[in-house]
């Protein structure tokens, strides 16, 4: 299956990418999606440690499964904010 990954802020400025598609096997989770992104763009290795995942515009959990056609992103702590996991 394929999911679309949106990158913003530091992730986008470091990688030079705003959006990419990743191919994942059935049963893959948001953690797998992040691992695939880091494999393609190693400069983003900080994503799994720092970010909260989002799926289809809502915050989600790393172990949540993804589905074909999902829009996924990894949200660092927002500008004025605190980290909530």
């Amino acid at each position, binding site marked *: 299956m394929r999911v679309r990954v*949106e990158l*913003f*802020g*530091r992730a*986008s*400025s*470091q990688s030079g990418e705003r959006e990419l598609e990743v191919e994942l096997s059935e049963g893959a989770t948001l953690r797998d999606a992040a691992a695939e992104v880091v494999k393609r763009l*190693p*400069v983003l*290795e*900080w994503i799994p440690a*720092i970010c909260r995942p*989002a799926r289809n*515009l*809502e*915050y989600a959990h790393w172990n949540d499964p993804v589905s074909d056609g999902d829009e996924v*992103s990894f*949200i*660092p*702590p*927002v*500008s*004025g*904010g*605190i*980290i*909530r996991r």
Partner: protein
Amino acid sequence: MDEDAVWVAITDEPLDPAPLVRFVERPEMGAVVTFSGNVRSENRGRTVLYLEYDAYRPMAEKQLRAIAEEAAARWSCRIAVQHRLGRLEIGDPSVLVVAACGHRGEAFEACRYAIDTLKERVPIWKREVFEGGQVWIEGEGDAPVAGAK
């Protein structure tokens, strides 16, 4: 809560509180509280030159609307929230929250809730350009703009 108790927008244009105030005002609303978050000239001991805001726009709009609707329902108020993106100079408003309620207590609370919650969960980030460098502001921490962590 009526359909149009909230108005939220993410915009590239300069912010003006006047249309937000007009949106929330109603004869039964005796209190209107306006919060304006402006670009500050100093941050963490650095002299700030300007800020550049970036957002995950569709998610930011969705989260912003959810926060405004929560506040409107909880305090029986009308509320308008706008956040600006792109390059902002010192003193420019980056975010406006305007809440109208029957009385001032609820209006202050609703306004406070909306701005505090926005800063926790709306996916908007700022790159701070200061004298001698630049950083992405991520929560309580600073992160490098380019290169690995």
